[in-house]
């Protein structure tokens, strides 16, 4: 669950991390609220979940009220990488001496917490790692260990901070790790840029916080109380769905098989429209819902169902397909059924007039050629 910048900053503020003061403008009708209490210059920041907001013109410094109002009207409703801006942050302008990069995440292969720190910040971490790998320090925190003081000293050294600034950093790291990362079970807490100011403060000018999708319900409850929304609202579908650009709807069981199906369609010249994994042991209803989800779009020409039944029973899937058929109009259907109760399933579909295959490659070829024809 990716959080908005302002939500991350609400967390930071609750954790005692120094942030620029800000107010939120939600929707056109609140733009007028900018006037009272804002001191200029200020920064208007479009609130979107996708990265690269700055480059897309989503962040503007405004010098007075008139410019603020005009810029706000311009930003509100802007499309950034497919996302429509419907809220703006009006943020205190910070006079920055130096911009740094600081984040805490989980390192998969070392099975460890990982602090990334760079004395230069403000650009995205991918470019940072690509262009100046020597400037990005990696400090590991073993999960069976506390965040040891020596690790904090390493981070201070990496960020070229000492004396009082280092003390501020130690405090910041404790708060990031204990009161944000651990408390809300984030899988990423990123401050980029972390600003050092002339008066020696360390300020989190931006925030990027991602919460683990699998957190226990009490964490969701805490998030909801803090943020006023449940960030997992759309996460409890019974299948997993990722939208793609193509025209062949893909339904598979198992993440690997479903990805392999996308890849196969592509290598045969087809174009997958989605990743949709109904998982193990799916019943009729899930299959039916999966169909509905794919057919929400009007650019789908074919639906390719690829089921290798283990726990999942082919006859159960066939039942779901047949139930969903009424909704399928101008869309072609190619079904591969193999594994548990394969024969029953294929017979059911045959009786309903749907051609089925036992082999994945044959089925994929059929799906691609059918799509070409249409």
């Amino acid at each position, binding site marked *: 669950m990716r959080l908005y910048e302002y939500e991350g900053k609400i967390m930071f503020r609750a954790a005692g991390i120094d942030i620029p003061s800000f107010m939120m403008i939600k929707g056109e009708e609140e733009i007028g609220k900018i006037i009272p209490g804002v001191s200029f210059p200020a920064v208007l920041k479009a609130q979107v979940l996708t990265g690269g907001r700055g480059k897309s013109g989503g962040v503007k410094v405004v010098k007075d009220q008139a410019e603020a109002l005009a810029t706000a009207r311009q930003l509100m409703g802007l499309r950034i990488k497919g996302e429509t801006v419907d809220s703006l942050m009006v943020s205190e302008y910070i006079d920055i001496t130096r911009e740094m990069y600081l984040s805490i995440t989980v390192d*998969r292969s070392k099975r460890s917490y990982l602090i990334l720190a760079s004395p230069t910040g403000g650009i995205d971490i991918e470019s940072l790692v690509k262009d100046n790998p020597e400037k990005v320090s990696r400090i590991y925190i073993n999960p069976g260990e506390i965040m040891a003081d020596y690790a904090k000293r390493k981070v201070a050294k990496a960020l070229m901070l000492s004396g009082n600034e280092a003390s501020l950093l130690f405090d910041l790291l404790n708060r990031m790790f204990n009161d944000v990362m651990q408390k809300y079970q984030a899988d990423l807490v990123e401050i980029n840029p972390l600003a050092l100011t002339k008066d020696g403060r360390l300020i989190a000018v931006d925030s990027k916080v991602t919460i*683990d999708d*699998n957190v226990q319900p009490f964490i969701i409850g805490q998030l909801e109380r803090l943020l006023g929304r449940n960030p997992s609202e759309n996460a409890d579908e019974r299948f997993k769905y990722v939208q793609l650009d193509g025209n062949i709807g893909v339904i598979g069981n198992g*993440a690997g098989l479903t990805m*392999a199906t996308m890849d196969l369609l592509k290598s045969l010249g087809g174009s997958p429209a989605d990743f949709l994994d109904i998982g193990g042991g799916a019943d009729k209803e899930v299959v039916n819902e999966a169909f509905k989800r794919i057919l929400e779009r009007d650019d789908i020409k074919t639906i390719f169902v690829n089921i290798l039944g283990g726990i999942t029973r082919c006859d159960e899937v066939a039942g779901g397909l047949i139930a969903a058929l009424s909704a399928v109009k101008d869309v072609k259907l190619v079904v591969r059924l193999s594994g548990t109760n394969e024969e029953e399933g294929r017979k059911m579909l045959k009786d309903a007039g749907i051609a089925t295959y036992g082999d*994945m490659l044959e089925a994929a070829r059929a799906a691609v050629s059918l799509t070409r024809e249409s």
Partner: protein
Amino acid sequence: MAILVNRDTRVLVQGITGREGNFHTKAMLDYGTKVVAGVTPGKGGSEVHGLPVYDLVSEAVSDNSINTSIIFVPPRNAADSLYEAVDAGIKLVVVITEGIPLHEELKAIEYARSKEVIVIGPNCPGIISPSLSKVGIMPAMVFKQGSVAVISRSGTLTYEVAYHISTKGPGISTALGIGGDPIIGLTFKDVLQMLQKDDQTKGVALIGEIGGSMEEEAAAFIGRGEFNKPVVAYIAGRTAPPEKKMGHAGAIVSMGSGSAQDKILAFKGAGVPVAETPMDVAALLKEKV
């Protein structure tokens, strides 16, 4: 001789009274696996498929000879079940559960490793040494005994590959799903180290996917000459967009790393052929084994 599970494997089922636990206990027993007991808190004293059910793992362990556990409990209790198995002295634990909170998974698995316990999974289909023992949820019929090991991050894709190796190829020594989560107990490299010493295994099908760097680490291991049996790889997710989780919590290209292209290049650089489709894996292996 296969690896990790064989005829001496004696299994405890944690979460035996749940729907999945109950169903797969039966399937494992039918396969001939020596499942000997189950645990479900509060259900101690009852029976499932003729097996005794205990409240606590330590009770099950002291009453029965057990060396392996398989965990089916719901995500919110799964880390606890792993701690319980480790503290009771069980040295191989298969965690089927999907959706364990990341931080809990991280701590519990590091804990298990610090106690020298082998964890397969979480979020995996388990392990099968065909004709010897199955500790998992895979459909047994696609696994025929033979000489190729299958290691995979995915369940159904394992079945797809195993089916071809079993029907058209040299058959399977041990197949295991290492799991689709970001943090898992056994890596590809760990399993290759075990397979190196296994006489029955003459070749390996390694089924990777996007996310993380386990495939690259395995490729480097092979490239250094530390594994010297034939390997054929397949990587799922070449068409996956970045920053999106593809079904598995661990299948994500993030911060510029974990792409299928990187992994394919790594294997090719180590001299490992990479199959274009899952179906090609068996054919490529047949040439080498």
